[in-house]
């Protein structure tokens, strides 16, 4: 419209108003309003003319101008406007996103963080996955200059943080274990406020005096917070889509005894769920659960490992390992306590105390070779230990620095519920199964990271569950980046060493490539006994003298030095026996009469006794990467169980050093690999005969292949009589 057209249109409108309005007062008001509307219409017309000068009136160009305008606005909102990819991704929907580096997880999803400032800087735009890992409710951030607390509200009553104080999606985006998961739209924050000028933490629930969390517990439970605690998010994952398998491969012997087949998932949807956060203060960790859960969905690629079902003959073998069954029962007790603590809104870190007290009441830390698990299962269902444990718990808390204020009635109720939990052989078997699946999942995840050169945050893993919540015989390792980051593809490509061919390919001859690490190599190494565990067990069983290995001696030296510093503690462990070392590492035990020494030495004992039997950071423990969370990791995996499974699965190919040459050759012909072992339990004994046997075999031709040395390891099981086992592996190439 031209200016003249506008003028004429407005004049016509004015005439019609005058003709149709009788009320003079109303006419004056309408004229006043109409005057303003005329002004607005004229201004809009002027702006349109200016826009037409730029765009030539093209709708496409007008839309482009609008996009540019939005983009500029987004740039202004970003923290780092200088990086192109920082804002390109926010204008595109996945999978059309640009990762800022090859392995960076990028969902393309964003959320706002309300930092509370006035003006346009109030809302900061953040990537969803970053926000959920760094800016999770309950944490404090310095990302925006002054510290900002991401609100979680009061959780002290039931260890549950109400996340509805943030702006969430109107409906759930998906579900996990029957619980709805919402997407965060805006995270709300506040400046931490310390009313009395000093920061305190509640010993009971670990709430902090920051004006957000507040705490309903007694003031007497508050202690000055001298050092900030550590917070980390508890993240779970769930498979959301049907599987799109593009290729299936198989491991070779003996790994195929663990894993039936391995498939590449070309496309999979994964729900990433923030279920809560864990807070660690002074060596104890508590867990706060979010209500509702929050999360997001990614499309990625992964590898499905189908496990072989648990062999019942193997289970029977486990039941012969009495100390191991005792440890498994302890783990089961721990898992019975966890839901009781949640029901009574008691922080999760108390689970160790309750477990320790039950161990003492049932004398599970004093077992010998006559340990009868069936008798213990009966005893757990009786009243006797409950009375004892209810008294004992107050003796043990004297050894802890913090105050303990749980009502005696609640303590009794927790013990009563453990008593009524009907632990049975079937439950033990199912728990063994879970321990094995979880342990293999950790080993595969670590091996996958090594093979692909990925960091823990670049890969992820999950153990799918059936509708009843039972773990399936499956493990999925997947890229944690939306649209994939190539790590799982790399792992799948390097799944298994190629059938060894002599010589080099033309490509290998021309390019001096470095040797890749194959998944089966790294996975197999994680199935061998833990180096640290072997050393510790040798030392505590006093059999390190049996073997003069420099490579072991160096590490034993460290333990010998520790023993000199804490002779009382080491003597106590020796008296208790190596078979009781796992329970000695749970909770605290009185050692000295002097109360100060009492506490110090008790803690030392817990530390020394926590040697690697069921897992440590040197082997398969993942810390805060473990599922469902770090607090229960110790009771969710068992390296020792995995060691026994490895032995069980390699029984067919295992011979001893005195085996006949023809028997060795038979095994090699059949399985292409043989393990030759020797047990050492005599101080005069060495393994020269085994070395000679290996020398005799090197390079021998079997059919069209040659025997080659392909492994050597040490083991030191917890057995009676004690021994060290040395194994060599020979393969055919």
């Amino acid at each position, binding site marked *: 419209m031209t200016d003249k057209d506008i003028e004429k249109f407005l004049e016509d409108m004015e005439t019609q108003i005058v003709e149709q309005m009788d009320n003079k007062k109303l006419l004056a008001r309408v004229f006043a309003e109409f005057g303003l509307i005329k002004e607005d219409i004229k201004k809009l017309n002027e702006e349109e003319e200016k826009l037409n000068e730029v765009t030539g009136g093209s709708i496409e160009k007008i839309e482009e101008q609008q996009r540019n305008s939005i983009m500029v606005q987004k740039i202004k909102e970003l923290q780092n406007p200088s990086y192109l990819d920082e804002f390109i991704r926010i204008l595109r929907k996945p999978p059309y996103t640009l990762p800022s580096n090859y392995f960076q997880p990028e969902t393309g999803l964003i959320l706002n963080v309300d930092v509370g400032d006035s003006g346009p800087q109030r809302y900061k735009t953040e990537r969803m996955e970053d926000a959920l890992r760094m800016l999770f409710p309950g944490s404090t951030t310095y990302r925006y200059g002054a510290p900002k607390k991401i609100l979680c509200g009061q959780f002290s009553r039931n260890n549950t943080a109400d996340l509805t104080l943030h702006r969430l999606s109107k409906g759930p985006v998906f579900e996990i274990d029957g619980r709805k998961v919402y997407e965060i739209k805006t995270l709300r924050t506040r400046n931490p406020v310390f009313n009395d000028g000093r920061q305190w933490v509640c010993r009971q629930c670990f709430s902090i005096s920051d004006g957000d969390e507040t705490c309903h517990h007694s003031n007497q439970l508050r202690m000055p917070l001298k050092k900030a605690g550590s917070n980390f998010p508890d993240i779970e994952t769930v498979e959301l889509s049907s599987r799109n398998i593009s290729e299936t491969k198989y491991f070779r012997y003996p790994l195929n005894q663990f894993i039936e087949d391995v498939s590449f998932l070309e496309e999979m949807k994964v729900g990433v769920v923030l279920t809560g956060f864990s807070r660690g203060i002074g060596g104890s960790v508590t867990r706060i659960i979010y209500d509702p859960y929050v999360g997001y969905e990614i499309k990625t690629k992964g590898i499905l490992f189908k496990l072989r079902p648990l062999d019942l003959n193997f289970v029977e073998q486990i039941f012969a390992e009495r100390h191991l069954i005792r440890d498994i029962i302890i783990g089961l007790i721990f898992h019975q306590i966890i839901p009781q603590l949640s029901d009574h809104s008691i922080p999760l870190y108390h689970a160790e105390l309750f477990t320790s007290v039950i161990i003492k009441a049932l004398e599970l830390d004093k077992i010998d070779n006559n340990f009868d698990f069936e008798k213990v299962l009966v005893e757990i269902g009786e009243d006797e230990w409950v009375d004892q444990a209810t008294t004992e718990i107050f003796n043990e808390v004297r050894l802890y620095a913090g105050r303990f204020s749980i009502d005696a009635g609640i303590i009794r109720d927790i013990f009563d519920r453990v008593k009524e939990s009907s632990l049975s052989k079937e439950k033990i078997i199912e728990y063994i199964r879970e321990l094995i699946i979880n342990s293999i999942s950790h080993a595969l995840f670590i091996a996958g990271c090594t093979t692909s050169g990925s960091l823990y945050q670049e890969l992820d893993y999950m153990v799918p569950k059936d509708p009843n919540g039972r773990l399936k015989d499956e493990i999925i390792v997947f890229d944690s980046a939306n649209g994939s980051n190539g790590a799982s593809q790399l792992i799948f490509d390097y799944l298994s060493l190629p059938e060894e*061919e002599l010589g080099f390919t033309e490509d290998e*001859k021309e390019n001096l490539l470095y*040797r890749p690490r194959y998944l089966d190599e790294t996975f197999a190494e994680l199935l*061998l006994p833990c180096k640290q565990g072997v050393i510790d067990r040798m030392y505590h069983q006093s059999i390190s003298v049996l073997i003069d290995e*420099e490579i072991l001696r160096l590490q034993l030296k460290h333990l010998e030095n520790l023993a000199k510093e804490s002779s009382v503690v080491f003597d106590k462990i020796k008296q208790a026996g190596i078979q009781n070392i796992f329970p000695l590492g749970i909770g605290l035990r009185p050692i000295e009469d002097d109360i100060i020494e009492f506490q110090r030495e008790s803690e030392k004992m817990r530390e020394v006794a926590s040697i690697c039997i069921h897992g440590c950071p040197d082997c398969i423990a993942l810390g805060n990467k473990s599922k469902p969370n770090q607090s229960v990791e110790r009771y969710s995996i068992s390296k020792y169980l995995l060691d026994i499974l490895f032995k069980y699965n390699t029984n067919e190919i295992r011979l001893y050093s005195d085996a006949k040459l023809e028997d060795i050759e038979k095994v090699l012909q059949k399985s292409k690999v043989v393990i030759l072992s020797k047990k050492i339990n005599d101080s005069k004994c060495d393994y020269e005969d085994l070395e000679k046997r290996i020398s005799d075999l090197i*390079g021998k031709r079997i059919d069209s292949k040659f025997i080659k040395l392909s492994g*050597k390891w040490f083991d030191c099981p917890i057995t009676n009589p004690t021994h060290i086992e040395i194994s060599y592996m020979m393969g055919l190439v």
Partner: protein
Amino acid sequence: MSHVDEKNFAIVQFDLLVQEYMKSSHNKEVFVYLISPYFLNYRISTTWPSFTSNFYGVSDIDTFEDLLRLMRQNEISIKVLTYSPKYMKENTSIKKRHIMRQDDFIKKLYDYGCQIFSSPKVHSKLTVTSQGVLFGSANITPSAMNYDQWNIGQYFPRSMKKDYEEKLLYANEKFSDSNPLKPEDLLA
């Protein structure tokens, strides 16, 4: 005794050395004698070092040099008997770049603490450790170890005492009859 040819020459040598490396952890009576007129570094087949262990880091080896360096870290005595680069330059028609490669490799091994000997008479090819003897026609060079040449030889484990000791005695005699390599034996 095992028959050895171009297909398993490198396998036997690699395993003999790896075994000696592991043995050095508990037994100080370990040694390596390497006799070969031509002596060059070579790349080890990418699949061989596949080695499963909870204590030994053998899998990270890419070349023959890596393996010798690892052994020297465990203070294993390594003696090498070969042609001196100067002799090769002045008395053979070997290409200059091959001589330079041998010169470089010898210098590296010297830096790792290997004892290098030379003799113009050396023609035998022998690898001896405390666990066995490998001998035959193959030099320690990429072309011999990577199947480009036809070679033949034999491997005697230590359990074949008489044969093993004969070869060991032979090696000791030849080292005695050779001269330790001097700076002037290398290329400038």
